[in-house]
C-alpha cells in the first residue's frame, strides 16, 4: 500500500501549475492579455511573411524544371510546431471520473449466480450513492520500437489497482503486434473494453459467471493481422493464470493460454461488423467458495482442475452513410461455453465433519444480446437480455451432498443515456435480475462518466 503514497503527491504537483495561474490578480490578467495580443500580432505578421515566402518559393519552383519536387515549405514553418522543451515529451494523460446511485430491491451482499461458481468482481455493487472506480491512464510512444500504456484504477475503498500496464513492440514485421505486461485479454468482444466504455453500467451475466466480469492476463500476447483487405487477426496469449476461472498456483511456466480469431469488414457505407471465436484454458487450485448443500448447510467447497472457456462474439453497427453523429444503431451478442474437470472437495474446512473429495465435471453455457440505438444527437436507448444455462454438472460421489443445478439465471435491462460531448455521459438504467431461485432483484442505477485530459480513441 505504501508504494502508492507517491500518487497523491504527484497529482498535487501536477495540478499546482494551473492553480498558480488561477491566483493571478486583475493587473496580472491585463498584462497577460496584452502579452497575448502582442503574441497574436507578431504571429500574424510572421504567418503573412511566411505565406509570402511560400508564394515566392512556389513560383520559383514551378519555373525550376530541373530539381525534384522537394518540400518547399517544410523548412519554412518552424512557427507551427508548438512542441518545445521537456514538456513536449509528456505522455497523453487522461482521467475518468465515475459515480452512481443504486436502488436495489435485494441485498447486494447476498448476490450469487445460482449454480455457478463465483469469482472475480461480480454483483451489482452497493446500494445508495457511491463513487465508482476512477481511472488514470497514461500512454505514449516509448521510443522508435515501443509504445507503453498504464491504466490505474482508484477504487472508492481508497485502494489502487493496476488495471492494465503493457508495452507494445511497434516495429515488428509481417503484421505482428507483440504486447506484454498486464492487459485485458483479447478474447470475446467486450473483454478488451474498459468498464466506462460499456453500454450498460454492469457486465453481462455471462462475463460475470464465466470470467469474473473481465479477464486480465499478466503475460504475453502476440497478434497477427492478415495481409488481406478484409480484416482478419489471430491472437495468442500466455499468462500466469492467476485470475478467475483460474487461480494463483505458485509454479513456473505458463498458467493460462488464450487463442482467438477476429474478422470484420464494412458492408456498403452504412454497415460494419466484426465476429470472433476465442478459447481460454487455465487451471484452478483450491478455488474455494461457499455453497448450500442438500441439507441446507452453507458448506465450504473447493475445486482443483482445468477450466476451458470458449466464446463466440459478433457486433454489427449501422450508421446512415457511415456518419454516426445523428443516428446510429448497434447490436452485439456473445455466447459462452465452459467446461471444467478435476477434483471437487466438499466441506473443505471440515466444519460439517463430512469432508469428501470426488471427480467433477461441468459443462455450462450462457449468452447475452444487446442493442443500443441513438435516436437523436446525444441521446441513446438500449436493451439487453442475459441468460445462463446450468448445463450438466457431475459431482461424482459428492452428489450425495450437493444437487446439480437446474435453475436458469436471467436478467433484462433497459437504459437511456445522454452524451453531450465525447467526454461526458449520464445514464439511467433499470434491470430485473433473477440470478437465484425465487429471488427477483429490481435494480435502478443513475450513473455519470466524465473523461478529462487527452482525447481517447474510438474503439470499434
Amino acid at each position, binding site marked *: 500500500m505504501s508504494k502508492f503514497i507517491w500518487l497523491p503527491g504527484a497529482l498535487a504537483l501536477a495540478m499546482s501549475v494551473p492553480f498558480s495561474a488561477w491566483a493571478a490578480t486583475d493587473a496580472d490578467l491585463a498584462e497577460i492579455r496584452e502579452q497575448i495580443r502582442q503574441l497574436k500580432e507578431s504571429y500574424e505578421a510572421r504567418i503573412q511573411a511566411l505565406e509570402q515566402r511560400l508564394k515566392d518559393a512556389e513560383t520559383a519552383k*514551378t519555373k525550376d524544371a530541373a530539381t525534384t519536387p522537394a*518540400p518547399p*515549405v517544410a523548412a519554412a514553418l518552424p512557427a507551427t510546431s508548438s512542441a518545445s522543451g521537456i514538456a513536449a515529451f509528456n505522455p497523453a494523460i487522461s482521467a475518468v471520473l465515475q459515480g452512481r446511485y443504486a436502488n436495489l430491491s435485494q441485498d447486494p451482499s447476498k448476490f450469487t449466480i445460482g449454480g455457478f461458481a463465483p469469482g472475480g468482481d461480480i454483483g451489482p455493487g452497493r446500494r445508495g450513492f457511491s463513487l465508482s472506480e476512477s481511472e488514470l491512464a497514461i500512454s505514449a510512444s516509448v521510443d522508435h520500437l515501443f509504445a507503453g500504456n498504464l491504466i490505474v484504477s482508484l477504487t472508492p475503498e481508497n485502494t489502487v489497482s493496476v488495471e492494465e500496464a503493457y508495452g*507494445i513492440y511497434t516495429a515488428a514485421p*509481417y503484421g505482428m*503486434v507483440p504486447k506484454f505486461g498486464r492487459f485485458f485479454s483479447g478474447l470475446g468482444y467486450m473483454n478488451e473494453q474498459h468498464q466506462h466504455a460499456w453500454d450498460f453500467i454492469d457486465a453481462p451475466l455471462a462475463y460475470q459467471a464465466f470470467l469474473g466480469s473481465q479477464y486480465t492476463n499478466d503475460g504475453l500476447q502476440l497478434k497477427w493481422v492478415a495481409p488481406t483487405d478484409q*480484416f482478419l487477426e489471430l491472437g495468442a496469449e500466455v499468462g500466469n493464470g492467476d485470475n478467475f476461472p483460474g487461480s494463483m498456483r505458485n509454479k513456473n511456466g505458463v498458467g493460462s493460454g488464450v487463442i482467438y480469431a477476429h474478422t470484420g469488414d464494412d458492408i456498403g457505407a452504412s454497415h460494419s461488423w466484426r465476429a470472433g471465436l476465442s478459447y481460454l484454458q487455465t487451471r484452478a487450485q483450491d478455488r474455494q467458495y461457499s455453497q448450500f448443500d442438500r441439507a441446507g448447510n452453507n458448506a465450504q467447497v473447493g475445486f482443483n482442475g482445468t477450466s476451458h472457456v470458449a466464446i463466440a462474439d459478433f457486433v454489427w453497427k449501422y450508421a446512415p452513410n457511415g*456518419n454516426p453523429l445523428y443516428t446510429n444503431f448497434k447490436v452485439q451478442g456473445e455466447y459462452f461455453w465452459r467446461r471444467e474437470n478435476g477434483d471437487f472437495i466438499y466441506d473443505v474446512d471440515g466444519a460439517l465433519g463430512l469432508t469428501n473429495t470426488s471427480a467433477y465435471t461441468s459443462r455450462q453455457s450462457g449468452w447475452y444480446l444487446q442493442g443500443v440505438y441513438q435516436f437523436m444527437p446525444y441521446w441513446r436507448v438500449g436493451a439487453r437480455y442475459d441468460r445462463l444455462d446450468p448445463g450438466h454438472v457431475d459431482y461424482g460421489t459428492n452428489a450425495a451432498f450437493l444437487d446439480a443445478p437446474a435453475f436458469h439465471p436471467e436478467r433484462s435491462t433497459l437504459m437511456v443515456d445522454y452524451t453531450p460531448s465525447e467526454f461526458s455521459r449520464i445514464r439511467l438504467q433499470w434491470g430485473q435480475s433473477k440470478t437465484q431461485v425465487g429471488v427477483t432483484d429490481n435494480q435502478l442505477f443513475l450513473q455519470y462518466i466524465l473523461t478529462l485530459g487527452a482525447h481517447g480513441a*474510438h*474503439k470499434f
Partner: protein
Amino acid sequence: MRSSHLQWLLAALLALSGGPAAAALNVFATVPEWGALTEELGGDKVKVYTATNPLQDPHHVEAKPSLIGRARGADLVVATGAELEIGWLPLVTQQAGNPKVQAGKPGYFEAASFVPILDKPSRLDRSEGDVHAAGDPHIQTDPRNIARVAGPLSARLAELDPENAAYYQTRYKAFAERWNAAIARWEKEGAPLKGVAIVVQHKGFTYLIAWLGMKEVAALEPKPGVEPTTAHLSEVLATVQRQPVKMVLRAAYQSDRASQWIAERAKINVVVLPFTVGGDDAAKDLFGLFDDTVQRLLKGLQ
C-alpha cells in the same frame, strides 16, 4: 520430413504477408481530398483506399475492422494531421501491425504540417467545445493549401517508390501548372465574394473564408462540435438581423435543420458546400470541388 513442412509453412506465411513489392504503391488516405490528390500525383502507380466518405463527419470515426485491415497493407498513410484523426488513426496504425506507417516513418504523411494553420486557440479548455489544440484542421477548403501539400506529397511518393520518381515529378509539374491556373480562375470568379458577410454552421470553412476574403459573423454551433441550440440560434438570428448577411454555409455531412431554421427567419440563402471531393455530384475531383464551391457561393450571393 518435418523440417520441410516447416519450410513450406514459413514460405506460405511470407508469401501471405506481402513478400516482394507489389506493382503499385498502396496508399491509405484518411479523407477524400488526400485520396484525390494522391491519385492526381500518383496516376496508375498508386492504389488509393479512402478511409472516410464525404458524408461522414471526419471527427467522428471509429477504428473499424475495415480500416485496420486496409492499414495493414498500406505503404503510405496520408492524413490531415492537426488532430483531425486523433480519435481513430493512432489506434488503427497501432492495431494494424504495419511498422511502415507508424507516425514518424516515411510511410506516414501529415498534410497539415506543410500549411500555415489558422485559428490556433489561445485558450485550451474543453469548456470551449471540441477545440483543436493544433488549430483548425480543415485545411482543404483553401486550394492554395492543396498546392502546398502537393509538392511534399509528390516528393514522398518518389521517396517510397524511387523507381518511378521521374513519373511522379512529371505528374506533379503538370498538376501544379493546371492547379495554379485554376486558382487564378477561381480567384477571378470569386472576386464578388470579397467582404461578403456569412454565417457558418460548423467552424469548418476558416481557410475558404480567408482565401476568398469573406467575413464570418457567426457560427450556428454554440461551441465547435456542439449541436446548435434554440437559445444560441436566436442570438445568431439577432446578429444576422442587425447586419446584412448573405448566406449560411454548411457541409454536406451536416444536418440541415439549424441552417434551414435561420435561413427562413433571416431570409438568407443556405449554401450547402461539398466540403471535400465527392461531397456532391459536381465535386468529382479536386478541380470539380472548387469549381462547384465557387459556383455555389456565387449563387448564394443572389
